[in-house]
């Protein structure tokens, strides 16, 4: 992936690294010092005492026990210090901020799936830079684990349970997502805000790959028009939309109007001004985008 700028840890690309890296390097330093001291003393004592007949007076068992208690306590205090730092960091890593972008994650042995509001992205998790991301994860088959070293994040992904982790990417780029169960890996792409907005728009734009009529059907179903308006001639709450477009409509106010594009738009924006005869003015306004309006009109035209 990216060039590593550190020997010991993965490239740092998350603000959470503050809670991890300091503890890690401090502990690494302590460990190196302890291991080197023990190794050197061992070798030194052996070389110095080799084939020498030394007689030294043994200290009393009581004194030896006190020395042992002393160095055990000393090491425990240092370890407990690192443990407390670790606990503090761990709790930070557990609690995502309220502002976080919430994404769903499903793990399977074959692939990762990342769920956005509008759809699913397989194998690549794409997020904007400098926005905390909260992952709500579950597995669809076995026990898996997610590990994103650059984000300093790792967590089990278990079936029938929701586990949560979060990170705050502060660097754009491509980063590895590993499955610690040994199954398929994925990629984390951190984009600039504009690129992310563009990606979301293009990736999940439902009009792409659809004719205007198909997209219109999508809008009709997605907006819930089908709850009140049938397309097969039957009457539900509102009038049916079958054979509706282009015909003359009788209104509640005893006037009549041609159901053209302008009427459709007016009905969506101010539904209770021109109410069809025999129906109650109960419809809510649907301020759709122009593209959606046009698609809906194309769909209505096709319902002859």
């Amino acid at each position, binding site marked *: 992936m990216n060039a590593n700028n550190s020997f010991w840890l993965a490239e740092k690309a998350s603000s959470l690294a503050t809670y991890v890296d300091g503890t890690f390097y401090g502990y690494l330093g302590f460990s190196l010092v302890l291991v080197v001291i023990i190794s050197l003393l061992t070798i030194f004592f052996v070389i110095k005492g080799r084939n020498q007949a030394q007689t030294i007076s043994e200290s009393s068992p009581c004194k030896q026990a006190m020395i042992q208690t002393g160095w055990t306590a000393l090491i425990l205090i240092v*370890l407990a210090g690192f443990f407390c730092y670790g606990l503090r960091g*761990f709790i930070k890593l557990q609690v995502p901020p309220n502002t976080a972008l919430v994404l769903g994650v499903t793990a399977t042995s074959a692939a990762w799936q990342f769920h956005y509001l509008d759809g699913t992205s397989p194998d690549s998790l794409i997020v904007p830079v400098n926005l905390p991301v909260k992952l709500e994860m579950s597995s669809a088959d076995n026990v898996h684990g997610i590990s994103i070293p650059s984000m300093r994040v790792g967590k089990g992904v278990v079936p029938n349970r929701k586990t949560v982790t979060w990170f705050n990417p502060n660097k754009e780029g491509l980063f590895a997502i590993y499955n610690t169960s040994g199954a398929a890996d994925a990629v984390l792409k951190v984009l600039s805000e504009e690129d992310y907005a563009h990606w979301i728009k293009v990736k999940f734009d439902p009009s792409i790959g659809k004719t205007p009529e198909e997209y219109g059907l999508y809008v009709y179903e997605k907006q819930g028009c089908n709850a009140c308006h049938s397309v097969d001639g039957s009457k539900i709450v509102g009038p049916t939309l079958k054979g509706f477009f282009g015909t003359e409509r009788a209104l509640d106010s005893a006037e009549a109007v041609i159901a053209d594009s302008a009427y459709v738009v007016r009905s969506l924006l101010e539904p209770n001004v021109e109410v069809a005869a025999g129906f109650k003015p109960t419809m809510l306004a649907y301020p759709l985008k122009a593209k959606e309006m046009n698609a809906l009109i194309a769909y209505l035209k096709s319902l002859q």
Partner: protein
Amino acid sequence: MSENTSNYLSESGAASWLKSVDSKRIALMYLVGMGVAAVLALIAGIGLRLDLLTNDAMVEGQQTFFQALSFHSFFMIFLFMVPAIPASLGNFFLPLQLGASNVAFPRLNRLSFYFWFAGLLLAFLSMHAGNILRWTALAPASLTEGFPFVMMVFAVITLGVSVIITGINFTVTIQLHRAQGLAWSDLPLFAWSLQAAAIIQIFATPLLGGAFALLLLEKMMGLGLFDPALGGDALLYQQLFWFFARPALFMALLPAFGIIGDTVSVMSRRPVFGYTGQVVSFFAISFLSILSWGGHLTSSGQSIAASTMTSFLFMILVAICFNCILSWLATLYKGSIQLNAALVFSLFAIIMFPVGLLAAAALNIMSLNSQLSGSLFAVGSNHYLLGAVLFSLLAGLYYWWPKMSGKQINENLSMLAGLTLFIGLNITFLPQLIAGARGLPRGHYQVIEGMAASQVVSVIGGIIAVAGLIGVIVLFIMSVKKGARAEDNPWGASSLEWKATTPPQTENFSEPPAMHTAEASS
């Protein structure tokens, strides 16, 4: 002693070995059997590293890679590391150190070896049928496996029973079969460490058998304990499994601590430093290891409170382990050192133990756990600890070899072979720690870009280590073939096993041994 005296090796023929209830013969059978299992597992381990390196036909395809990984982990852990020191050196020398003629239940001891052997065969069947589950056999993945999984369950339960039998046998032997006049404070550290390990063997191992039996019932009858499809909880299995697997590491570690403690004392001609403190440490390690299993599950989704408590208990455990290590240093301090293979192998263990322990403690610093637990770092930590156990086993073997075989061994070449093994293992395991800290996940079939260098180094280290190990094995065989006759007590040790004839006779002692330490202190 005259050459003509009959000893435990006198009787020959395969039947005399297989039917023997002499713990010394059982120990040798274990030693050879476990040696073969370990060498096979080592070959599998290097095979899969080579595969990562070359991606050629050496180990072909993902299926074969995971089979090799299963083979390596299962054989190394269940067939070698868990029984390693108690079953071999423990069986041989515990009764001798106590002045007893045999373990308390000799025939049960033989049964334990047969169970181990049956476990070996079952494990072979499982692996041959294409087992791709690692030794953890995590549910629910394991439930979808067929024949290999069922064989693995039987292998684990059989091996578990073998371990429990040994634990019970040692406990009863230590409690009831000490020679007249042998005070508790006369026991060598090795005997104490076996008692502390036996506590884990007796209390933690049944959980393993239980967990695997439940897995099998789940598969056959659909109990719905672990399988999420039936409303079970996959984490429950992990809790049960690690309740065994965390102390299992210390089951292997404790007898190693005992060996090093005794060896450095004898080879520096000084009494053990802080004898009582070390013995207390052994039991503390034993209990704390059973209580600290949850540190393995910090990032799995268990509660923060459970993770915090168990991780902190593990920190105490590590500090107590360092008490033993520093006590060995204090024993060496101003000693009159006899430089020989047993001491050199001990020194390598003394250097490797701190690395493995500190790495294991890093996994219990909770903010680091999420980073490290799924990575090769955890693998490196365990390999350092188990590498140190291997050095301890070999140190004990060199220490007691004159008594076991009645032969001397080439000390200088042994030290050279040991140095080769030490360099090789470090070159293999250190890159695991580094690559793991940089994020390389464990058990990965794909070669990960930018991480290939660490794989190359690991393979080279593995090959150097194998060369060292072959050297060690060849030297032992040469010693058997043409080694000069050893003295009864070449190192000037005071524990009772050195008072037996060389090699010991079948009943260990013809008359109750005189208490040397008691005389010295009076």
